[in-house]
């Protein structure tokens, strides 16, 4: 009898500690501020014309992609060039932006968070770790059975937790923002918004469309979304706050005005961006970035060919 009572109390404690399992909500944003949040212009110093501007794109492809991009970073560390003042500079230190997808996102996010120790501990922390086995083992934990029974908690939320605990030390985009300006490249983690079949990047400029504050989002969640392999995982959910927090960037209404934009250029991107402000759209469901761009090149391509991108290189040239 006593054993049964203790067991019952244990079960109740377990239920209370789990509560109603729910994915971590991304926080709302009351007002847009172009000078705040995880944006290129906030994270990096103004680019100097005399310095090389290196933009990296890491493709998807699981651990192989993570290892490949790690090797690339090692090589960039070896390559140096003569700066205008005569000193030698590593090419690695000229990396301004890293755009990544899926497996490559583990490398890029870890480097952006921990550039000082990246080469020392990333292989042990991620490349040699059996991540897949770790994820499967979690499925045998009864605590997770209970949590997975709730509609607002799925395997991808469990994976994000696992990445956060084992690889990214629970860091959020607020931690990336807290780093000294210019001390790490601007990180662009790419996922796919499966509701509109469009690329979704984890930057504040994208989160402005959702009226949400990216600083309150764990980096591990962004990496989980970027590497969210379909079928194995359910889409990762982000909340959209439909009350509004400010106007859309000017290029979007311009592109959507049929009277003006007869050639319908930029319409697809504009429709995708404007869809987050539709009153009945409450959630964004994200899957692997590879579904919309497995090379991580769409963002950089838009940045070098248009002024629409929030981190447009054309704007920097102007």
């Amino acid at each position, binding site marked *: 009898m006593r054993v049964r009572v203790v067991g019952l109390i244990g079960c109740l404690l377990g239920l209370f500690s789990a509560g109603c399992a729910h994915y971590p909500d991304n926080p709302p944003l009351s007002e847009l501020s172009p000078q705040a949040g995880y944006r290129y212009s906030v994270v990096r110093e103004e680019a100097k014309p005399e310095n090389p501007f290196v933009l990296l794109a890491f493709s998807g492809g699981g651990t192989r992609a993570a290892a490949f991009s790690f090797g690339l970073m090692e090589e960039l560390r070896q390559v140096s060039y003569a700066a205008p003042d005569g000193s030698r500079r590593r090419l690695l230190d000229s990396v301004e932006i890293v755009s990544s997808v899926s497996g490559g996102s583990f490398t890029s996010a870890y480097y952006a968070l921990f550039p000082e120790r990246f080469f020392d501990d990333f292989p042990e922390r991620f490349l040699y770790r059996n991540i897949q086995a770790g994820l499967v083992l979690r499925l045998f934990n009864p605590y997770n059975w209970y949590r997975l029974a709730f509609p607002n908690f799925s395997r991808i939320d469990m994976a994000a937790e696992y990445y956060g605990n084992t690889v990214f030390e629970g860091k959020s985009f607020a931690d990336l923002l807290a780093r000294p300006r210019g001390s790490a490249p601007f990180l662009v983690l790419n996922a796919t918004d499966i509701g509109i079949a469009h690329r979704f990047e984890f930057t504040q400029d994208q989160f402005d469309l959702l009226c949400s504050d990216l600083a309150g989002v764990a980096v591990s969640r962004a990496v989980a979304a970027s590497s969210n392999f379909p079928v194995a995982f359910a889409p990762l959910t982000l909340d959209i706050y439909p009350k509004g927090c400010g106007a859309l960037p*000017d290029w979007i209404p*311009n592109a959507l005005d049929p009277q*003006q934009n007869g050639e319908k*250029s930029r319409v697809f991107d504009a429709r995708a961006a404007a869809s987050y402000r539709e009153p009945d759209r409450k959630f964004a469901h994200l899957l692997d970035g590879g579904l919309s761009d497995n090379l991580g090149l769409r963002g950089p391509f838009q940045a070098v060919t*248009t*002024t629409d991108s929030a981190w447009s290189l*054309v*704007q920097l*040239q*102007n």
Partner: protein
Amino acid sequence: MEFFVCPCSKTGHIILDGHDQGPNKDNSGKLLTKQCNAGFHTISLKLGSGAACSPLQAHVDIYDTDPISPKEVAFQCA
């Protein structure tokens, strides 16, 4: 890639779709050519003095330009 200039008797900053693209002229008064992608854009000229320019905003379709013959988006400033 498309190209445009903003002729004006005054020197000011070009605002393209809400983003500052730098001055419309260099120190010698020569017009600076700016780049953008094809399509409709909203362009305005912002003077350091705060004086208003006409039009306040120009909605222009920029296409089929090149660096030699950029689109001219003219402003008149008080």
